């Protein structure tokens, strides 16, 4: 697969567009007038110091928070208020900053859970675990096995995820998000708390997901090395405001960004 070029991204089809989003909790303004877009097939990083509003931004995109002002256009459809359930139906799936796996279930069941929206067989067949319900179960098991192969987690298939080490839990969570075959994948700090080796593995998976499945990815990450290598374009937030937006090289050279990260003398 050929690598994406700057021109591809600039001319690419727009997948998501957030326009003048403002979100406040009481007097706290979490997000102020932020606009940016995500084009199909890119890896879009959202960075910024702690408390900049990155996670709030993801929560707005998948419907946990409802912005007071502004619109979100996803796949050409404008929306204002929605439940996270509807975001899932539209094809947005995500991972969480603190692992949010279903701790009591096995790896297999967790990834199967990611395919919930694709399973429809009714209660009657479920009661007897026969016919259509059983076929559906097996058909999805096959799809899940492909993800398990892709993420190289075959040995932990039947292990309850609560017993897994942190790095593997993150990987299972990525698998669960992938199982939904999303058109937009939101990753909230996929590499937080990982060692170098685990970070490299995870970066590899993210690039592979992007290139093999063509999944559009929005990524929050604090490790600048990783972000600069992975991302096609970067949005920088600080205190709820957008301070820069562009290619990694542009963002790196931006004086506002340097000031936000290093602080300025007053």
């Amino acid at each position, binding site marked *: 697969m050929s690598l994406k070029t700057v021109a591809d991204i600039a001319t690419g089809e727009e997948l998501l567009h957030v326009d003048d989003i403002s979100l406040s909790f009481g007097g706290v303004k979490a997000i102020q007038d932020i606009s940016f877009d995500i084009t199909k097939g890119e890896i879009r990083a959202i960075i910024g110091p702690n408390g900049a509003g990155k996670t709030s931004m993801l929560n707005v995109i*998948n419907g*946990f928070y409802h912005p007071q002002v502004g619109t979100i256009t996803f796949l050409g459809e404008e929306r204002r208020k929605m*439940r*996270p*359930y509807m*975001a*899932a*139906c539209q094809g947005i*799936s*995500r991972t*969480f900053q603190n692992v*949010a*796996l*279903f*701790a*009591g*279930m096995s790896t297999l*069941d967790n990834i*199967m*859970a*990611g395919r*919930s*929206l694709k*399973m429809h*067989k009714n*209660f009657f067949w*479920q*009661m*007897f*675990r026969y016919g259509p*319900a*059983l076929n*559906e*179960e*097996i058909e999805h*098991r*096959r799809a899940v*096995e492909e993800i398990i192969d892709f993420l190289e987690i075959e040995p932990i298939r039947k292990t309850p995820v609560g017993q897994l080490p942190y790095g593997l839990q993150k990987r299972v969570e990525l698998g*669960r998000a992938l199982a*939904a075959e999303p058109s937009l994948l939101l990753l909230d700090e996929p590499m937080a708390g990982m060692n170098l080796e685990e970070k490299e593995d995870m970066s590899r998976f993210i690039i592979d997901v992007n290139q093999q499945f063509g999944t559009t990815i929005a990524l929050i990450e604090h490790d600048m090395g990783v972000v600069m290598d992975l991302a096609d374009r970067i949005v920088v937030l600080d205190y709820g405001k957008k301070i820069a937006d562009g290619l990694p090289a542009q963002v790196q050279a931006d004086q506002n960004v340097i000031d936000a990260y290093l602080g300025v003398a007053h």
Partner: protein
Amino acid sequence: MFYREAGQFKTTYKADQAIFPIFQDRMAIAIYLLIAFVAIPVFGNDFFITSMMIPFLIFSLAAIGLNILVGYTGQISLGTGAFMGVGAYACYKLTTIFPDINIIVLIISSGFFSAVIGMLFGLPSLRIKGFYLVVTTLAAQFFLEWCFIRIPWLYNYNDSGAIEVPQREVFGIIATGASATPTTRYLIVLAIVVVMTWIASNIIHGRIGRAWMMIRDMDIAAELMGIRPLNAKLSAFAVSSFYCGVAGAMMVFFWLGAAEVESFDINHSFLILFMVVIGGLGSLVGSFLGAAFIWILPVILRAIPRTFGLDINAATIEHVNFMIIGGLIIFFLIVEPHGLARLWGLAKQKLRVWPFPY
């Protein structure tokens, strides 16, 4: 040594997704069923069947019902007793109105009444969680108890205020009422419990059961995976209450023979919650183990002094009994907070690698 899966290769996903993928487990289930359906009716005496097996099976079914709600969906309920009552009163009214319909059909149908009531009282679960939900289900318990006393229509305006089971026949055999033989009643209860346990296991291992467990483990993530909390929680309340309702109807029709509101009071809700907690949250085997622990063990302990010919007065036996059971509950919960089902699982795991430690 004999319980080992070595050499049992699975070549299809179907075989791997089976509920009992290990051959020895399937054999064990067949043996249990053989004992339950053949050995116990043939060799068991009336006391054993009436005071141990029938209530054990009925409480197991109620525990499965509550386990679906508490163990699998994570919604705590203290209304079990009342939901059982709804099943019992519904069945009583149904058989009064339609005396010619097969009583087994009516018992299953009464579950639907209980399911509807359960769903109604499950509505608050969409907004409140944990202990606060307990309080609203407690409200259901008291409200329904009030209904069982204050609405005389429910007990056909009996002066006693109790429901008395009329005689009903199933395929020409007397199944309910005073003249039904314990074996007949036992076999009907057993058949219903086995079929409903099998269905519960199917639901839990499928899409719907997964949705319940997703809600239990991480409701925010579940919603993101496309689970609607409304559907998942209410279906859990419905199925759970259905099971409790059927258990309640069977309790009156096949065990007690007559019942008043006291048979469905808060103590029963607690009793069944204890069975679920001690047996193991989120385990069908646990529901049976818990019911056996809470119901069968005291009966056995009570019988011990008599078998050894010791002359201890009944009150003393009862007190000692309470102490032993209480002590054992604490002991088991300290040894394994996840209940008897986890101990059972660990034992099986040990057996798998025996004689090696791991």
